[in-house]
C-alpha cells in the first residue's frame, strides 16, 4: 500500500503535466515587461511541484534520512547547487541543450537510487554523497535556467523576476519535501518499509533510467 501511495504520488504529476513550461505560461511570460514578483514565485513553485524529475531526485535523497538535521543538510547542498546555475545560467544567458540536461537529471535519479541500494558500497566506490548531491544540483539548476530562458523572459525586471522564480522553486521544494518526508516517515514505522525499501529504490533507478533514455531519444531525434 505505501509503495503504491509513493508510486502514485510520484507518477501522477508525470501523467498530468508535461514537464515543459506550459504553453499558456509562455504566453503569459511574453507579455511581461518589468518586475512581476508574485507570478514568478508561483511559476517557480509550480515548476518544482509538477517537475517529476526534481521530485524523484529529492525522494531518493531523503529516502533513508531519519533526522531533520540531515534532511536540511542534504537539501541545502541541492539548493546551493541548483540556485547557483539557475541564477548564473539565466544572467549569462547560458542555457544548455535541454535534452542533455534532462538526461543528466535522469542520471542523478539513477545515481541516488543505486546509492540507496548500496551498489557503490558493494563496488568499493566511496563517493561523498554531499558532493554528489551538490554537483547534480548544479545540473538541475542548469535545467531550470534553460526552462526560464525558454520562457522568453524580458530583460526588463529580469533580476527581480529571476530571484522570485528561484525563491518560488525553493517554496515548491519545501512543499514537495513536506509531503515526501511525512509519507516516508509514516511508511518507515511499518514493517512493509523494510520489505519494500529495496524495491522502491529499484523503481527509482528504473524511472531515472527511463527518463535518461527518453531524453537521449529526444536528443537524437532533434
Amino acid at each position: 500500500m505505501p509503495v503504491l501511495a509513493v508510486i502514485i504520488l510520484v507518477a501522477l504529476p508525470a501523467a498530468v503535466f508535461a514537464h515543459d513550461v506550459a504553453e499558456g505560461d509562455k504566453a503569459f511570460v511574453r507579455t511581461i515587461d518589468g518586475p512581476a514578483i508574485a507570478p514568478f514565485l508561483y511559476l517557480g513553485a509550480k515548476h518544482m511541484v509538477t517537475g517529476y524529475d526534481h521530485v524523484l531526485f529529492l525522494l531518493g535523497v531523503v529516502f533513508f534520512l531519519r533526522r531533520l538535521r540531515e534532511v536540511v543538510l542534504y537539501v541545502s547542498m541541492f539548493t546551493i547547487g541548483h540556485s547557483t546555475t539557475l541564477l548564473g545560467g539565466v544572467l549569462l544567458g547560458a542555457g544548455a541543450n535541454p535534452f542533455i540536461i534532462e538526461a543528466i537529471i535522469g542520471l542523478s535519479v539513477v545515481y541516488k537510487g543505486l546509492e540507496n541500494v548500496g551498489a557503490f558500497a558493494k563496488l568499493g566506490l566511496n563517493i561523498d554523497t554531499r558532493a554528489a548531491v551538490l554537483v547534480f544540483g548544479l545540473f538541475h539548476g542548469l535545467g531550470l535556467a534553460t526552462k526560464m530562458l525558454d520562457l522568453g523572459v524580458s530583460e526588463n525586471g529580469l533580476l527581480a523576476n529571476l530571484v522570485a522564480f528561484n525563491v518560488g522553486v525553493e517554496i515548491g521544494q519545501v512543499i514537495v519535501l513536506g509531503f515526501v518526508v511525512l509519507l516516508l516517515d509514516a511508511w518507515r514505522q511499518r514493517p512493509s518499509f523494510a520489505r519494500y525499501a529495496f524495491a522502491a529504490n529499484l523503481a527509482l533507478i528504473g524511472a531515472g533510467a527511463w527518463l535518461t533514455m527518453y531524453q537521449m531519444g529526444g536528443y537524437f531525434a532533434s
Partner: protein
Amino acid sequence: MTEMHTTASSGRTKALIAGGIVLAAAAAIVLFVLPAEFGIDPLGTGRATGLDKIAEPDNPELERGMLREDVLMLSETPPQPAAGVTDSWEYELAPYESVEFKYTLPEGEPMTFRWEATGTLNYDMHAHPFEGGTDLTESYAIDEAQAMQGTYVPAFTGEHGWYWDNRSANNVTLRLTASGPMTSSTIYGGPAPQERPLAGATGRIDGNVEGHELQGGERP
C-alpha cells in the same frame, strides 16, 4: 495505560497534521492555483497579486485587432471568389506541431478564404504590417476550430494569415483556399521562413517582417 495515552495523543497529532495539510492545500488552491491556472478568483487574490494574468495574459495584439472594424467578416457559407489569384495550400500537422502561413496583401483590397482541417486546431488569425513589423502585429481572431471562412480586408500592407497549432495526439491535415490580391505567400515553422510564390500573381509588393517568430511564442 501510558501506552494507550501515547497512542491516543499521537493519533490526535496525526489527525491534526493531516487536517492542517488539507487546510493549507485547500487555501493554496483557492488563493493561488485557481486564479493562476483557471482565472477563477473568488477572493480577489489573483487580481491583487497579478497571478490572474497567468491564466489570462494581456494580449496587446488582440486588443489592437479588436479596435478595427470591417477587417474580418466570417460567413456561414463558403464566400464567393474575389478578384485576383486563387490559391490552395495543404499541410499535415504532426501531433503538437504548429505552423504559420501568410499572404502578402495590399491594404484595403478584399481576400476571401476558407480553411478546413481533419481535426480541431487552435488558431490565431493575425497580420504584421511591413511598416512597423512584429511590434504592430494585430490579431483578429484567436480560438479553436475545425474550419473558418469569410472575407478579409487588410487594414494595412503586409503579411496576413494564420498560426495553427495542433494540440492533439493525431495528425491533422489542413486545407486552405483563398482568392484575392495576394502577391506571394510565406510559410513559417521550419528553421527559416520559406517563401512560396503564387501561380498567376502579377503585382509585387516588396517588404518583409523582420524578426518574425511563430505566434505561439515557439522559437523556430
